[in-house]
């Protein structure tokens, strides 16, 4: 069994976001080799029922969107397509900025976002990590769950990703 197949088995068993670093440690391989293995796996999954989803440096196995209609019917789980405008605005900022502080979200939206952020955290659509430049605050970032609901395998597949990201970034930190 080659590395790609072994990675597939581990990702299936974990059923949780797994970083490239974690995989490298588990297999005692370099991160480059793991990335190579992930690419092989990804290529193998073309036309299959499963797909590899990536956020930042983590990966997770998911079902292909084409199989989603049936599962959607079976789960009866509705995302909150009732996210509302506040939710959608906040998700847009988090998705296209990647990792973003609450201060920046508030600045862009012009209103306090603490309640909507808590709501999105509870729903598992965003998660928070300590802010490396300010230990008292957090950075918010998209989760696999969110990418799943959007049916995209990685952030770069979001609609108009490059344009929107560039516009937001240049306005947030002007040259």
């Amino acid at each position, binding site marked *: 069994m080659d590395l790609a197949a072994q990675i597939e088995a581990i990702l*299936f068993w*974990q*059923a*949780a976001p797994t970083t490239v670093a974690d995989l490298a440690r588990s297999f005692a391989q370099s991160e480059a080799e793991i990335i190579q293995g992930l690419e092989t796996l990804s290529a193998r999954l073309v036309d299959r029922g499963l*797909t590899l*989803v990536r956020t930042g440096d983590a990966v*997770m*196995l*998911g*079902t*292909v*969107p*084409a199989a*989603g*209609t049936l*599962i*959607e019917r079976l*789960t009866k789980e509705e995302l909150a*397509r009732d*996210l*509302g*405008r*506040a939710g*959608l*605005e906040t*998700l*847009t*900022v988090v*998705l*296209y900025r990647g990792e973003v502080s609450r201060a920046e979200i508030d*600045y*862009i*939206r*012009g*209103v*306090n976002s*603490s*309640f*909507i952020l*808590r*709501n999105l955290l*509870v729903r598992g659509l965003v998660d928070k990590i300590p802010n490396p430049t300010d230990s008292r605050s957090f950075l918010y970032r998209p989760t*696999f*769950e969110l*990418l*799943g*609901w*959007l*049916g*995209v*395998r990685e952030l770069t597949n*979001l*609609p*108009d990703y490059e344009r*929107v990201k560039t*516009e*937001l970034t240049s*306005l*947030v930190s*002007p040259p």
Partner: protein
Amino acid sequence: MVVDIFAVKVGEFEGPLEVLLELVEARELGINQVSLAAVADSFLEYLRKLPGSRRSDGQAGMAILGNFVVVASTLILIKSVSLLPTLAVTDEEQGEISDLERRLKLYQVVKDTLPLLKAALAETPIFYRDPRARVLNPVFSPTAEITLPGVQVTMQRLLRDLPQLEVLPEKTVKRLVSIEQVIGDLTRRIQSALTMSFSDFVKDKREKVNVIVSFLALLELFKQGLVTVIQSEHFAEIRIETKDSKTPRYG
């Protein structure tokens, strides 16, 4: 149920940038100092009507109103400068003006992206395996962290961090407290600049003077009737209240 109370608190409010952008876009204008000056009156008018209809929204409504007032004060500044280019503007004020422009452009990018995101959410999702679905043969494996004192401290922290009623951010509070003062100062500055350069205006069309007079009237209205900020004692909670609207008397 838990989730329901939460939804109410998150509630839907139109934010100030959303309103301002709608005003600018309704006139098919770009975002710049000129267009912001052009919609300042409409924004203040919107704000004047806002509190009455939202009085029942309590604390969250107050916080939203606070955000509106902050944007309004910058718009008043922009409008004043547009009416009287000779009006002296500090660097800080100029900074506030460019900042509002920039935020509005940012907000526009976000707003224009919403339909794209909505469309993506309507697509079929990717599903994952539920990590809790199949846990076989659990082995009792405690760790040294699990102690009664640890559990007690953790619960205290959780209770402390439960969502509290919205508290206005300090910066907003500072600006709210001084909003009446800001308007008062500006009104005086505009009036003196107007006296000083009145001859310039006479050369211009007569309407311009009318515009300035009515804008001053609007400011006056704002000052007298729109917003009262109440702080019962130092560091106490800030409350913004609306007075019943009375028709101001202007000669």
